[in-house]
């Protein structure tokens, strides 16, 4: 029987022991463990495992950062796993070089099936995570397209729109930017015209879809 070397990289001993116990009953797996990135690097330095199961919260910088590091050093197939994976996390892991993503609540049979699938060249991803990832890709595309549209705005118009996206009134925007309310209104008219949007509310929604909460907050801090 060809044996597959599996690295379990997880800081929680229960998971390392659980996976080890499970896989040791099978005849086709060899298991090595690491509690953190340093341990992973040591294992990989000695001998590249075929598959690494990496905890999203792997110390010190998390599983996604670990995947990014390891992708440079080794041809190991990397699977990230966690509780309650979020859309952006799954996408970020895959973009960083992960070959799949699993729930930590996976059944023992499901985990074995997934690992054997990886050996056969499959990418382990449960249906809900696959759907989540497709949604995330669509969201990224929509954001890119919205950003392209936003490029027609002048720097000042973007500033005004940032305030609008945060719910500011014209009077408040005027005070913050040291311009008249009339000028703010003119900027708003231009914004709606350039973006072909019907209302101030639509413009705010557009801005959120293009730049998201983090960039909007960052821009607000700089203002």
């Amino acid at each position, binding site marked *: 029987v060809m044996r597959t070397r599996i690295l379990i990289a997880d800081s929680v001993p*229960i998971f390392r*022991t659980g996976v080890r*116990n499970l896989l040791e009953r099978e005849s086709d797996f060899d298991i090595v463990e690491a509690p953190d990135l340093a341990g992973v690097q040591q294992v990989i330095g000695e001998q590249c495992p075929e598959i690494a199961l990496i905890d999203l919260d792997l110390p010190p910088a998390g599983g996604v950062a670990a995947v990014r590091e390891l992708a440079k050093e080794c041809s190991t197939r990397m699977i990230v796993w966690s509780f309650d994976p979020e859309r952006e996390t799954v996408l970020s892991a895959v973009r960083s070089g992960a070959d799949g993503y699993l729930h930590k609540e*996976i059944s*023992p049979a499901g985990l074995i099936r997934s690992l054997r699938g990886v050996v056969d060249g499959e990418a382990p991803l449960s249906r809900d995570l696959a759907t989540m990832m497709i949604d995330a890709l669509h969201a990224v595309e929509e954001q890119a397209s919205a950003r392209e549209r936003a490029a027609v705005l002048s720097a000042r118009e973007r500033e005004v729109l940032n305030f609008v996206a945060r719910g500011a009134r014209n009077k408040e925007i005027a005070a913050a930017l040291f311009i008249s309310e009339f000028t703010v209104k003119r900027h708003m008219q231009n914004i709606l015209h350039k973006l072909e949007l019907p209302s101030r509310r639509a413009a705010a929604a557009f801005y959120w879809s293009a730049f998201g909460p983090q960039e909007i907050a960052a821009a607000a801090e700089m203002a």
Partner: protein
Amino acid sequence: MTTRVTNGGEPLVAIVCKVPLLCEALTSTLAGIAEIHSFPADLGDLDGLLRSLQPDAIVVDTPESADGAESYARASHVPLVHVLFREEKLRVLADGAWSAPEENGASPEAIRNLIVGGIFGRQPA
């Protein structure tokens, strides 16, 4: 508490888990110490299940299961261990009160020690 010995001569530990790998981890750690019966966390009527099974110790991994098992654990004076994965901590209901063990982390050995202490440990004089 009266320790109920199974046919195999070992006390019975019920593991009610949302994370099946918890059972995998505890199976080897409790080998030779206790007999394990594991159940998925979403079974419903956990109290009824435990009253039928009459385990000597219980391990759970969700707050809901901890709530569901608490009544049986209090009435039967058996240790109830709650594994908090995200916090990497344990808490245990023993002698009628919840407490966090001094031993850090949520390792299988720490869980084993709590169970063994709860089942076999000497009672204070």
